[in-house]
């Protein structure tokens, strides 16, 4: 069966990932008072215990953004973001992680707009669990980067696709 999408050129994808990382570092830094520090590539296929914030972007370059926050990192980051402590197990934690992703997404959309890539934000989704393992679609360009927030690591995943034009 023919796929409904086609691969994004690697150079374009690499450029997108670079903008995502910059946006994440600067926005979380501004919102939380602590800039995350990039630490290279994250391991794939490793389940983790934590909370994932997700957002999809439509427009010139459709892509998805996932931010994976292990428990300790999530608690610290949202505490600094909100200005008050939030219980990891409570409903406000998901709300707060969604807002962190939302704020990053807004900055990211602006940076992309400035380089001529128009995109629309969707509403964020959040999942919390143990042994969570985000899976990849075959052939879909994907990047997972590791960052450190204070002394706790987290990861960001970008996956892109271009819808195939209909005949």
């Amino acid at each position, binding site marked *: 069966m023919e796929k409904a999408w086609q691969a994004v050129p690697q150079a374009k994808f690499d450029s997108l990932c670079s903008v995502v990382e910059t946006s994440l570092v600067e*926005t979380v830094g501004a919102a939380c008072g602590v800039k995350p520090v990039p630490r290279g590539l994250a391991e794939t296929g490793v389940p983790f215990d934590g909370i994932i914030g997700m957002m999809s972007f439509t427009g010139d370059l459709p892509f998805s953004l996932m931010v994976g926050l292990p428990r300790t990192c999530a608690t610290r980051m949202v505490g600094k973001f*909100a200005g008050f402590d939030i219980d990891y197990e409570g409903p406000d934690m998901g709300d707060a992680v969604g*807002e962190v992703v939302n*704020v990053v*997404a*807004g900055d990211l*959309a*602006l940076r992309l707009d400035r380089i001529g890539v128009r995109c629309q*934000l969707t*509403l964020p989704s959040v999942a919390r669990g143990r042994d969570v393992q985000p899976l990849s679609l075959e052939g879909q360009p994907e990047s997972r980067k590791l960052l450190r927030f204070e002394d706790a690591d987290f990861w960001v995943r970008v996956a892109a696709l271009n819808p195939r034009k209909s005949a």
Partner: protein
Amino acid sequence: METVKALVIDDSRVMRMMVMKSLQDSRLAEFEFGEAENGEDALAKLGEEPYDVLFVDWNMPKMSGIEFVRATRSSSDYDGVPIIMVTSEKTMGKVEEALDQAGANAYICKPFTTEELQKKLGGIFEDLHARK
């Protein structure tokens, strides 16, 4: 300082709390807050009691912030009530859509500081106090 009734409209409870806390810290007014989870909920609340100022997120389910602003401005009941967007949407297109087309009075980008609120909203609150 006069008491100002403010309706904070955002689908995120955490963000509503952050907005309310920042507004209290700004000392632009003594605030009495109402909350709504989306544009539809906000319209219902406006039908129940009057508010002096509205703070609106953009991306919300059921009725977005921009749809709410348009609906509010098309009604003569809320003429003159300041509407302030508080949103992560930052592109010039969105800012223009909110301010020039839909009729919002001010635009605050998330994340924001208390100082930014004071700087951007000072004039609006001076007018509000003068009218009371």
